[in-house]
């Protein structure tokens, strides 16, 4: 089934936050934010701004009736800065005016005096100064201390990855309207409606029941609207609460880029030890996560870095330590992969480093150490149904790894100005929220008396096709035409206490809740039909809107059955609940079984580097991916293609640039480049691993949102492979993204 939204999208009829018709009297909000990354506010003079015709008011922390606090995991982030500012772009006040234009003009008239303080932008410096968001954590397995003496080869180095701007094309925004009795309804472009609801309630000092949050769809999220969609929604709600008028706050691009956090930059140290036979014996890594000025989701992101520190490999002795370092950048946040990719990059760098020193191919080392069934992850979970060996041999059979290697070396021996490089990038990505209580979901299903169906879940549609999958489930289970099913907006009054749409697990969790609701309804409907035919409920089935009794078609249609059931006063509404079984994690011991299952895959990347200009082009990326039994292959393939390119962007061209004082220099689309139509691989081929899928995946169709991003890591190592073909003396530096400038430096470094 095609994405059910696509017709609305191609005709321009789909409604996004900023398209919601504005109610008369709506006020528009523009945020006044800190011009410096760290400082003490001495004074602010709003008088000139307030005097501007069309200005309604300017809201600051003083107008907040509840708590001036929006921190999700730790209460360490003010909605509006009161005394000190901790990052450039930190909101200080909300200007409300009759038009956005007037509000922007007013912003220019606000006079602020700040005593600047020293800003920290480097996570290692923060660690040295003991500026940590929370205490470091260590995952360990075996004993690295005693393992080093058994290693034939030991390599140490540093591997860094920069951050990444989400660059959802639809910017952040929210629209709040006051209702009767002080209630508020908020439309928000958020991945986490419940987080928005909870935070508004806290800031306004009222119960969550007074706040309704509704989400129709997002024009892209990628993690950037998980926690960070909240502040604007809270501001809009505060405005609606104080002024009793509808308030809309939609960020402009530069405000969005300046005020919001991004993928965490990491700076890490590794030490890897290999046995004579090239098996990895020991691996130690220290991660410095650049968390920014407040916790946001950093603790959870850091945890996932630790979970994925050994990627797809079995290492018997591991010690992985992570520091969440507090700096004066905007609070960094979720981004597709959620810290996993940063962890995986480091072990890949360590392996490439080792391979280069030993004069062997990195893929030899990778293959030798692939995770097998029964291997223990550093966090205690035992690997099961590991597809990696099969995936690797599928890759050899279908895409000819040796052939690629030969093609590359033949090309390189014939060409001096251009060099090709290639890499293999295996992935193993754990599916579930690592915080176990978040692995639950609910779905509300109404069968209307005419046989049509309304489905509400906690899933937020942001282009990933989750609503399409939900609709497929309901239509399949009832065996009715998909046109009879409507996917409702995600709304906190219909589905409460939702987990954010994140962790790739949304279709699994909400889909299983939806299945549970449908099962319950089917049970009641079967009984009603069985009573009618004088048979047993177990004899009844539904097929193409027809009731089947003991294997034979009857003359009763779905619609007639529903009509009958309604008259019999059968409940035609059900709320399904699902909580992932088995999973657990003990944070004291740092051991457990946190993931329902893993997604595996392998990418073969080939690149051609222009050794005069330092530019490069990706010839191809060939992927063998573990979809399980995909319930919607076109949608899933779209996730792979998109995730791959986003990963390549992160590894190659997306250069986030903060100056020493914490000011964002790459603050617009003209200074921050994301992949355009020319930067994508000339060829992307995707093969599905033949597998039975995982029980805990929805219809055995494995989660697909985040894993493919990590295929993009291969881009970095393919480029490096080409650079070393030109300049074998190029130093072993691992510092993503591999911009053209860095390629040139590598090519001509002595």
């Amino acid at each position, binding site marked *: 089934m095609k994405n059910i939204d696509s017709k609305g999208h191609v005709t*321009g009829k789909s409604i996004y936050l900023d398209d919601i018709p504005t109610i008369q009297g709506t006020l528009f909000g523009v945020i006044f934010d800190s011009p410096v990354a760290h400082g003490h506010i001495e004074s602010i003079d709003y008088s000139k701004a307030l005097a501007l015709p069309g200005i309604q008011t300017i809201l600051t922390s003083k107008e907040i009736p509840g708590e001036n606090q929006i921190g999700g995991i730790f209460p360490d982030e003010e909605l509006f800065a009161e005394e000190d500012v901790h990052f450039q772009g930190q909101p200080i006040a909300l200007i409300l005016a009759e038009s956005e234009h007037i509000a922007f003009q007013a912003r220019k008239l606000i006079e602020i005096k700040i005593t600047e303080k020293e800003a920290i932008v480097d996570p290692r410096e923060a660690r040295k100064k003991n500026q940590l968001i929370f205490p470091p954590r260590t995952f360990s397995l075996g004993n690295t201390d005693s393992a080093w003496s058994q290693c034939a080869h030991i390599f140490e180095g540093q591997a860094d990855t920069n951050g990444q701007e989400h660059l959802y094309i639809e910017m952040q925004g929210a629209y709040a309207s006051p209702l009767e009795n002080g209630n508020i309804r908020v439309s928000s472009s958020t991945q986490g409606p419940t987080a928005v609801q909870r935070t508004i309630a806290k800031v306004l000092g009222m119960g969550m029941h007074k706040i309704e949050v509704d989400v129709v769809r997002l024009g892209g999220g990628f993690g950037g609207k998980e926690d960070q969609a909240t502040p604007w929604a809270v501001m809009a709600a505060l405005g609606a609460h104080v002024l009793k008028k509808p308030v809309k706050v939609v960020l402009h691009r530069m405000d969005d880029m300046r005020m919001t956090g991004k993928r965490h930059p990491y700076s890490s140290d590794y030490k890897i030890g290999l046995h004579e036979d090239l098996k990895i014996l020991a691996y130690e890594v220290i991660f410095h996560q650049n968390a920014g000025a407040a916790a946001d989701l950093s603790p959870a992101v850091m945890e996932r870095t630790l979970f994925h520190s050994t990627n797809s490999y079995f290492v018997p002795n591991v010690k992985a330590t992570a520091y969440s370092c507090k700096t004066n950048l905007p609070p960094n946040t979720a981004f597709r992969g959620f810290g996993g990719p940063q962890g995986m990059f480091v072990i890949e760098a360590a392996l490439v480093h080792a391979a280069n020193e030993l004069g062997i191919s990195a893929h030899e080392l990778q293959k030798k150490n692939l995770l097998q069934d029964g291997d223990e992850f550093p966090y205690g979970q035992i690997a099961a149904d590991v597809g990696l060996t099969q995936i690797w041999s599928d890759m050899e059979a279908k895409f000819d790894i040796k052939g690629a290697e030969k093609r590359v070396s033949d090309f390189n021996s014939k060409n001096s100005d251009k060099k090709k490089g290639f890499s293999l990038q295996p992935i193993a990505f754990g599916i579930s929220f690592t915080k176990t209580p978040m692995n639950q979901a609910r779905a509300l299903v109404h069968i209307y008396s005419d046989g049509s169906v309304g489905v509400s879940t906690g899933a937020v549609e942001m*282009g990933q096709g989750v609503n399409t999958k939900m609709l497929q489930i309901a239509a399949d289970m009832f065996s009715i035409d998909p046109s009879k099913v409507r996917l409702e907006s995600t709304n906190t009054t219909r589905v409460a206490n939702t987990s954010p749409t994140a962790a790739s697990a949304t279709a699994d969790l909400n889909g299983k809740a939806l299945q549970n609701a449908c099962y319950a309804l089917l049970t009641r409907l079967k009984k009603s039909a069985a009573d009618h035919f004088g048979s047993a409920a177990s004899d009844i089935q539904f097929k193409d809107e027809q009731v089947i009794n003991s294997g034979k078609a009857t003359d009763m249609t779905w619609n007639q059955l529903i009509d009958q059931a309604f008259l019999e006063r059968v409940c035609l509404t059900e709320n399904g609940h699902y909580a992932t079984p088995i999973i657990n994690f003990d944070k004291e011991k740092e051991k457990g079984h946190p993931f329902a299952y893993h997604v595996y895959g392998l990418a073969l990347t080939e690149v051609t580097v222009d050794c005069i200009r330092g530019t490069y082009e990706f010839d191809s990326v060939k992927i063998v991916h573990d979809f399980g039994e995909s319930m919607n292959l076109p949608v899933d393939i779209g996730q792979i293609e998109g995730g791959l390119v986003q990963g390549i962007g992160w590894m190659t061209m997306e250069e986030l640039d903060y100056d020493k004082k914490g000011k964002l220099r790459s603050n617009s689309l003209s200074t921050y480049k994301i992949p355009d139509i020319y930067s994508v691989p000339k060829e992307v081929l995707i093969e599905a691993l033949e597998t039975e899928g995982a029980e805990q995946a929805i219809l055995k169709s494995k989660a697909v949102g985040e894993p493919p991003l990590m295929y993009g890591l291969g881009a970095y190592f393919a480029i490096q492979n080409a650079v070393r073909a030109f300049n074998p003396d190029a130093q072993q530096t691992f510092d993503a993204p591999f911009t053209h400038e860095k390629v040139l430096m590598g090519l001509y470094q002595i």
Partner: protein
Amino acid sequence: MKIVFKINGKQVSMEVKPSLLLIDLIRDVLKLKGTKPGCLEGECGACSVIVDGEAINSCMYLAINVNGKEVSTIEGLTGTENPLHKVQDKMLEHGAVQCGFCTSGIVMTTKAYSDKCLEEGITPTREEVKKSLEGNLCRCTGYAKIIDAAEAVYKK
């Protein structure tokens, strides 16, 4: 300032401020919300509309400049009863849409280019098709399906 122009086939005349941007005229004054603001600095193409046959970024175009011209937006591509335009059809068929926020810009850009190709009787190569979309960013799809869809527009 008074301007007179055609939008999606309809003649309109109105008073506008000289500083008004075309995107604001389309979205806020005419309430045609299919045209999307992605960056408001001419970089993403989400706001693409067609003015006298050329795809332009409506965020970089002053509304007064449409005086005497013909503008079409995504809403003008199909009437309520009309089937989809071929470009829309191909986008659908190839699954070239995810979040959809870039989509109307991509559809309009491709529409303008395909009209031009049709007029000149040329079938563009895949590289030319890519070139026609170089000003449109998509953060979701990785472009593969978008290129396939746009290329399919020219196949018989």
